[in-house]
């Protein structure tokens, strides 16, 4: 029996995650707030812990949680950071 494919027929690109660094010491960690309530409180606390471990931190914020991050923001983060931490949900 033959049926037509109703999907977008996408072939997902197989990508492996990069190797996690053994330490955050000396690394630049981006902290992305997705603009949900209290995301900033969570990130403030994480930022303290990261600084104690010798990381440099940079703060970013999405304009709204309802849409994917603007491409300029993701490009900026990719250019400026070694690692990214994102605060999702409430």
């Amino acid at each position, binding site marked *: *029996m033959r049926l037509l494919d*109703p999907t977008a027929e996408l072939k997902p690109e197989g990508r492996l995650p990069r190797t996690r660094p053994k330490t955050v010491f000396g690394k630049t960690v981006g902290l992305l707030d997705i603009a949900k309530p209290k995301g900033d409180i969570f990130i403030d606390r994480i930022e303290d812990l990261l600084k104690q471990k010798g990381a440099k931190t940079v703060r970013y914020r999405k304009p709204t949680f309802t849409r994917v991050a603007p491409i300029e923001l993701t490009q900026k983060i990719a250019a400026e950071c070694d690692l990214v931490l994102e605060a999702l949900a409430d």
Partner: protein
Amino acid sequence: MSKYRLFVKESCGTCNLIEPLLPELLNQLDVELVSQDDPNFPEGYTVMFDESLERSYRANIEIVPTLIKEHDSGEVSRIHGWDKAAWQEITGLQFSIELPLFQPGCGSKTLDPGMPEILAARFEADKLQSRILEFSADDDIEACFDQGWSDGLPVVPPTKVRVMRMLSGTKRDPQEYIGAVPPDLGRCTIEKIALNAVLAGCKPEYLPVVIAAVEAALEDEFCMHGLLATTYFSGPMVIVNGPLARSIGMNAKGNALGQGNRANATIGRALQLVIRNIGGGRPRQVDRSALGNPGKYTFCFAEDEVGSCWKSLAEEKGFAAEDSTVTLFAADGVQGIVDQKSKDPDSLSRSFAAALRVVAHPKLVMSSDAFLVVSPEHERVYREAGWSKQDLKDRLAELLMIPGAELVAGAGGITEGLPQKAVNKVLPKFREGGLSVVRAGGSAGLFSAIIAGWAASGPMGSIPVTKKIIV
């Protein structure tokens, strides 16, 4: 030099009537005889037997006999049936045989019931670009489940014939690109929408509505990606306005928000299947809804416009009465409102406002939008008092100005609520334009309903989008 093609079928009385003309015709002119149903008709002549009907299909034969005159550049003219004067003119011959002056032809075999889409699948399926999947299984419905194409209910297996039949519902090119469907940004064409309309169980005449719904969903201000991914309840609801809603038989009356009407059921479902199959949006994957709501199977109805004294939703948005539109709204469930005693518009509006107060949470304001669906029996109260839809909306806006003291966190012993700085303000329950009103429902029942929206309503989240339906 002219060439001719004569399409006939043995079972046609008129084709038999003109058989005595053939010696004269074939002696004087270059004529190809094409028979649709019998290789030996007309008897004694060289006949091209169009068994597969490809010749007839490609020549768009609708009636037999059809006589087509061609030059090198292509078809010059054609006539069908028997009309002595017309035949003499197209051939330049004076027929000596005695025949009646006129006799109509018969339907071409290409137009027998079911044949147009079978022939389209046979001869035009190369216009389809979707990949063909072969299954060895016997059960085509189970195969569709196994592929993950279903929303939990059986889908209609998408065969070539079904897809070609569905595409007859639109004049648009199957390869017309509509957009990228979130979350995977899957490439969506008219053909892909038609495929999912087949899965949903749509009829071809519903396809333009489904296409308009997909176009609306892909507008940035509708925020389909966020709506899909949210932990909130909501999914897209489709409201159809205009003459097309009636001509395809949608339900705006009894049980309008419920089951039983094929157009209502399958149009909403087709949109959800597009998000699932083309966009890759699936529950517990990118769709993180904590509870969801039954409307995520399908949520689609028509506004009850005929006989209403109110402007329709489409007219409120600036469309003409003869336009047909879809409006998409990020909706969750249905909240019923009972009011069987109010006979005046002020009392009924206060009932509505009291019920609207609790949308999302009694202490949350300007988060969710809402639709108020007013039944005909309730709308009658406003009609008899001469209130327009806008009068009702204005009154509700007044009644839904809420003191901040009731809304702040801690008020009423409830931690949820607004920051303390709101305590001395008076705030509207809905953002400007956030409350919409439509009429729908059966003629008996002093009940109306609220359909609340996504808590991220408005410019930073989802705004209802209206699109004109193009056939």
